[in-house]
């Protein structure tokens, strides 16, 4: 794992997720790189997120194909693309939410949960 990936996951482990912010563009970006993908400036810093966001899209997974064995025992589960208040989109899980209740556009907030021996930044309905 690269340094900037490690820094991201360390912030998640500390229940205080930080994502990169470009001081030149005055915008956040995701996923982490050592420069801004918009302007290529290296004048970036990691800033904690507010924790607020909304569901951009979601899928209820019944038959996992992926490489993560841990999820096979949790079906059905919700994978979502969440747009953070910081205007970046990332993949995550919606938890504490019945599968019939998840909707595109739904407001969510971050909730740090242990999964498969690590902490994940999941989201819960608000």
């Amino acid at each position, binding site marked *: 794992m690269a340094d900037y990936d490690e820094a991201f996951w360390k912030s998640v482990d500390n229940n205080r997720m930080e994502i990169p912010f470009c001081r030149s563009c005055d915008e956040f970006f995701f996923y982490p790189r050592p420069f801004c993908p918009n302007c290529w400036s290296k004048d970036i810093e990691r800033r904690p997120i507010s924790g607020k966001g909304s569901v951009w899209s979601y*899928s209820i997974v019944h038959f996992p194909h*992926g490489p993560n064995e841990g999820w096979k025992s949790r079906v059905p589960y919700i994978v979502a693309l969440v747009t953070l208040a910081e205007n970046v989109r990332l993949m995550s899980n919606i938890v504490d939410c019945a599968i019939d209740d998840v909707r595109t556009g739904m407001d969510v907030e971050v909730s740090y949960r242990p999964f498969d021996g690590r902490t994940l930044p999941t989201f819960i309905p608000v």
Partner: protein
Amino acid sequence: MSLKNSGLIVGIGETAVGKHPGRSALDLQAEAVQKALADAGIEKNKIDAIYALGSYIEPTQLHGLGVAEYLGIQPRFQENVDVGGTVAFMSMILSAFAAIEEGRINIAVCVFGDNASTHRPPGTHGFLTQMKQGTEEYENPYGSSLVVSYALLARRYLDLYGLEPEEVFGPVAITLRGHAQLNENAAYRKPITMDDYKSSPWIAEPFRRLDCSPVVDGAGAFVIVSRKVAQQMSLPFAPVSVLGVGTQVTHKIVSQTPDIPELGMADAGKRAFEEAGLTQKDVDLVTIHDGFTASVPITLEALGFCGLGECGRLVADGGISHTGDLPVNTHGGLLSQGHVGGVMHVLEAVRQLRGHAGERQVRDAEVAAVAGNGNIFSICGMMLLAKGSN
């Protein structure tokens, strides 16, 4: 450079699709190349260039060298063209045409084939289970996969236009299954109904099993010849010309995708139509890279073949059947012929333009659009093919 003056597609070949447990992907590709050359009436030693895409399930490096050596040929050029979906074959054609235009080659063969059905690791599913995106760290921990990534885009599409899967995805699956019944070289030919669709098990909502293309072993190849050399040959069949090609990259992984209306397909299509001097009305049939049912409406709408969110109605009215106004994937597509990476979409377009499609022949087919996307609509492309040397 003008596409209209460069090269022609003069030969096609495909293996049986299905299960070939005792054969390598390289061997399947070799058979497809042999068949395509026989179809074109060209000897193997005449090949100047090989544009190949290697197996995703058992990847090797320097794949094109392997194709050449395996077939016992020594071309001037070879490339491994790992571009994504059906767009890979558009890139192969552009590479070949550029080399023809510069006088570097006269005859090229383009090929893909894989044996993902019988050679994927035990317990795995799908086409690209061995593929690494490079950003797994931001997807795998959440229980995602290629199917889930596509499902996320499909749900976005449905919610953008207020649609249910049964209104648009189901009719696509049923229509393409009908086409596969007319294609002897299709792996999934048993008819399906809307009841079958609705009772098909969920994989990753909004996708049921019948929304997902099943992988098969198989290979396809086509031969390109410069117009100059084509004039000196006695071609067994009428050639097919390429009138326009457009492609567009927007992202790689699904979290970085633009919203449905901003995907690269619209720009790619616009460029291809402009280059060809044609419009949607001139197109007699379309082949679409249909890894999942959702690919068909997203592609047709972006290309302007119907209004945004309106593809469901077109499909339900029989519009994309081989007898409809806009036949789509008359060979059954990835969904019902089986997933061979999209190369069969090029071969079917050529077959239709030659008038060789048998029971599923589209009447008076003169112009075909081949449209596709790679990864999760990460690269989009469309090319327009026409009957004859124009």
